[in-house]
């Protein structure tokens, strides 16, 4: 239950207007810090829901695939530049962000990850690595300003953020493949 409290505290902290405004004022921090933290808060809160509603998770997410699909859809939705732009101007969109990321992405991720086999996990990694590289390429390469609210230099910065993130994930996978994981048990 401690985890739930920490997750809730983090969530409340992130919703505080000055915190939200500060984090959203820089494009890369909006996408690569605020959003992941929202997901993480849901990830922590998931314990409570899993204990409270085990039947629900058992019925709808027995093998983890539906959960990870929901997670991916929400994530991809928020990777579209337009949605991020809207979150800054359309109030409903901002509220949707604060609900969808913790509750529709963080919680299913926690529930699904354990249930997935290593093949599915690798597929998820692969998809996101490819996606991140594409997004990086897009943000670095495109000559126009994509968002109304952010400058081009913010866009390029975010692009490099995606590329480095993808690189870190690749290195992580490589060390998983070449390292002997059984030795850490």
């Amino acid at each position: 239950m401690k985890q739930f409290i920490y997750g809730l505290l983090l969530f409340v902290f992130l919703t505080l207007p000055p915190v939200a405004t500060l984090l959203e004022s820089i494009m890369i921090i909006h996408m690569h810090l605020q959003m992941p933290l929202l997901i993480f808060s849901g990830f922590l809160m998931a314990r409570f829901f899993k204990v409270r509603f085990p039947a629900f998770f058992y019925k709808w997410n027995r093998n983890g695939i539906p959960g990870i699909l929901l997670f991916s859809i929400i994530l991809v939705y928020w990777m579209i530049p337009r949605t991020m732009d809207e979150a800054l101007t359309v109030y409903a969109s901002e509220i949707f962000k604060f609900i969808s990321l913790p509750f529709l992405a963080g919680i299913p991720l926690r529930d699904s990850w354990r249930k997935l086999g290593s093949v599915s996990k690798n597929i998820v990694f692969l998809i996101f690595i490819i996606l991140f590289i594409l997004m990086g390429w897009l943000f670095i390469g495109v000559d126009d300003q994509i968002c109304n609210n952010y400058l081009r230099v913010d866009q390029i910065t975010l692009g490099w953020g995606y590329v480095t993130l993808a690189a870190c994930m690749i290195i992580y996978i490589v060390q998983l493949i070449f390292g002997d994981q059984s030795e850490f048990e």
Partner: protein
Amino acid sequence: MKELSALSLQQKTIKALGVNTKDAKISLSYLSVAFATLLIGGILGLVQGLQRAGLLELPPWLNYYQVLTAHGILLLLVFSTTFTIGYQYANLSHSLGGLLPKVRKLAWSGFSLMIIGVILVVTMIVLNEASVLYTFYPPLAAHPIFYVGLVFVVLGILACCFGVFINYRHWRKTHPGQTTPLLAFFAMGVFVLWFFASIGVTIEVLTLIPWSMGIVETTNVMVDRTLFWWFGHTLVNIWYLVATSAWYVIVPKIIGGRHFNEKLIRLVVILLVILNIPGGFHHQIIDPAISESIKFLHVFMSLSIAVPSLMTAFAMFAVFERAGRKKGGKGLLGWITKLPWGDVRFLAPMIAMISFIPGGAGGIVNTSNQMNQVIHNTMWVVGHFHVTVGMSVVMTFFGICYWLIPYLTKRKLTPQMNRLGVIQTIIWTVGMILMAGSQHLVGLLGDPRRTSFTTYGDHPRALSWIPYEYVMGIGASLLLLGVIIQVYAVINMMFFAPKGETTFPVAEPEDNALPAPMWTERWGLWSVLLLMVVAMAYVVPIVDMIVNAPPGSPPIKTW
């Protein structure tokens, strides 16, 4: 049970055979270079100290900035690096039961590469072609060969990194289910950090070579400075990690105690490795082209290193108190008197640890934006790093010599040599207090660092610095005396001390201690986390520096 007896068998063979002579030769070679360098660097230090106080005029063929560049590079880069490698390879050989033949080969290749590199670098400094100071970032430009020399040094370091990684992997493969001995774990931390630190400086130097040759016209000064401090700051913390390996594992044994909780020690190492590199930005607080908010964020990055440091301080005092009380120390502070103050192997690292208190406090001053504006580029900074590196790190290194060298040469530490060591420690301490203390004070009065003697046309302000600079000169003289004694002691222990057996002092855990958890060995994961932290810290400012770059700088030779 079988595992246990295999383990003790291995330990018995180590005991019976003592040090592996092939491995000892590697360590001794590195240590010899280290102390030869210390002697030259120390002489240059005194020359500088006297010149700055106006007490010594340099001959026309030698200028202050040549001396300063050589002093910085020889002591900060060469002495500390070679000592660290010699000591860490001895730790590795001892705790993993000998180096693999191919690792030995790597260590020797690293040695040759470094020697070639240092010769190239020093030659260029002596020829007055490279007075760019040890920070060597643009717009000051050295002769291309100077940078080529640096590339050789970095390649040498990388060879030693791979040596450690290979030996570690081999041991892990052959010892499933066991955690690595603590000293080998420290060695991994040191060399993983070194590997990633080298990336920054390699990129920098490779851009500087074509620039200094005139193939490209300009270079981006801000990016180069940032890459330099990525490396420079991390290097400082590598020495610090090396020193802590002795504080945690060696010193407790010398005072007859046990080492602290192994899980906490490993956690400190992991935190230092993951969080370290972005601290480099605290050297750029006054640099333009980094936005206020980024600098503000980096204050946190830089102060986060205080967490493992405070954990270390806490752990060490707990260990001392426990050992002192076991020996019958009574009352609140009675245990302090029970510590072996007359043993140089304890005294030197102990003073080193104590000096970390003012050193750390000074570091917090330096990393705070407003206070940095007061002390930036003054003698205060010079005082600061002589306390941190010249005392905390170097005195730990000196203390290590008094058991490591006799161990490696199969000789004994005689009581006379111990007494000499205690005297050396006292001289060094007094010298550093005088020199670094007056540097701190005169820095607050505005005396600039890295500046040849001048009175600015007898300006009263500049004249008020001179008394402090005399004290600095006295301290510097004591320090050179300390260097000479230390080098004498090292030579004596290498070649003349009586033959005998010296043990490698490795502390044991407390009897009821839990085994260290296996997950601490996930170096792949720690490396990825390190890279994530680096990405978070560097992507925003570096993209900004490149996209909004001013016209670059041509190479400039001011001397």
